[in-house]
């Protein structure tokens, strides 16, 4: 879908392509996988003077080659995180230190 989010030549963008449609998938893939396409994403600098998210574009990748696809993000985020401390792990350290402290006292 074309939106008003715009990129200009040289901007760092992300593209998406359908590599294989469900019909083109390898015969050995399991049933759930065979129902969805094989998709690919890649990042690079926009080649065209300007483009909107949703447009078919070309990018120049980190090794300098050109790949085509549909523009899906401009300045794609890198928001990998940790999230909150899982309660199931919170007390493991103090429990184990307690066991070792007991062992030291015992000896």
């Amino acid at each position, binding site marked *: 879908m074309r939106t008003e989010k715009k990129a200009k030549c040289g901007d760092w963008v992300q593209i998406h392509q359908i*590599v*294989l449609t469900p019909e*083109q*998938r*390898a015969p*050995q*893939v*399991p049933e*759930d*996988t065979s129902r*969805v*396409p*094989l*998709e*690919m*994403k*890649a*990042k*690079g600098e926009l080649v065209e003077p300007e483009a909107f998210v949703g447009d078919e574009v070309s990018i120049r*990748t*980190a*090794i*300098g*080659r050109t790949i085509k696809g549909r523009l899906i993000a401009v300045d794609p985020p*890198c928001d*990998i*995180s*940790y*999230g*909150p*401390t*899982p309660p*199931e*792990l919170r007390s*493991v*350290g103090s*429990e*184990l*230190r307690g*066991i*070792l402290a007991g*062992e030291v006292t015992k000896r």
Partner: protein
Amino acid sequence: MTSRDYAAVMSRRPDIMRRSVGIDYKTFNTGRIAFDYERMMSETGYSLEETMAIQKESNVGRTPMIELRNLTRLARVLAQPGKGARIFVKDEANNPARSFKDRRASLSVHHARLRGYPGVVAATSGNYGAAVASQAARSSLGCVIVQEVFDSRGFEQPEIAEKGRACEAYGAEVLQLSVGPELFYIFLLTLEDTGYFNASLYTPFSVAGIETLGAEIVEQSRELTGRDPDMIVSTHAGGGITTGTARGAARAGSPGTRIVGASVDLQGLHMASDRDFNRKSFTTGHTGFGIPFAVEPDRSDVPRNAARVLRYLDRYVTVDQGSVFYITEALAQLEGLERGPAGNTSLTAAFSIAREMPEDAVIVVNETEYTGAGKHPYAQLNFARAMGVEITRGDPADNRPGERIVIPERPEQLSVTEVDLNRLRSSYVRHACRALGDDRMIEQADVAFLAEDSGMPAGDVEALLAENGVTVKGA
């Protein structure tokens, strides 16, 4: 113009492989099934001395080996009197891209540069991508990493997303794919389009690069304890680290060291399933790779896999996901080492097995890796919960891959499950029989090879061949 459709590209596989690896594997064939493994390793790989020199020059290896004194004390509290081996870990997180994979990458990238390839390509969702990208960066070579990272809903496995980020940080082009084995098609197309070297995990270079790890462990064990390691525990997936470590330890003159493989139990989850993809909290080091690669090593991305674990494994065990998260927490909290996930699968097994061994025995876990956002237990457990996996504390025997992760309540609950190696050896021979197709005649050399490669007595191999309708010429 050459066709780029799936079937056409797959049919060009042998040519693409020959050009991109530079090895004509056929020259090592000695029968229909048999090939000369040692000749392949010595003629196309590098000697231990050459490897050490290349790795020294590329700042790889010679990592510290650390005694885990508090985990050893804890194991002894739980063990019978006189039991509880000394547990050591090889801190491979000290390599440039922060895992043992730099050892493999350093040799592959060195070889690519020597042969004049303009760059390297690797199909990997793991640390190997970052290792190849890091080594390519310092060698001024181009690098493309092809990884499987998101499901059809667009959810990225956080650990693989982090590894992709690391590859980009080293200047690589990263092709991120959804779930499926056709990643290999994109890999082949990329090799063809770029003319780059195939820095496969499974070439002789890649496995020779790990032999230094085994040799260093033996040397450091002698320095630190005055004895050879009694046991090395290795996280087993594709077979590289286990094969390379075992070969290196043997070269260093420690043939008595027992080699134990450990994998996270993910049995029941399909590795090519779009649904199952994000219901596992370990992206490698698990049974989904460990068992298929043991019984059918040549399923890899090169014609002859240099990693052949049935030749080297003395014992193979599985551990559950919850126990690995527990030991990861213990390693940080008791030893001050925030590492992993890689290495903590074998550490879980080592902690459990140490309790069976005498106090003066030495047990070595052969790797750590850096941790970070996406890779950390916090990220994995939060992601698993979001994907509908139940997380609780309790008895780890209640772990169900893809459904429930149970964090143990007490350290004595950590245990290993034995995998019957004889079952895997038989399965290996049956796979070899199946691959023969209609022509069921093989040669004497094949029998000897199957015995060596499966670790099974020749008599047992012959019985299995007969069972599978295979006859031996001249027998």
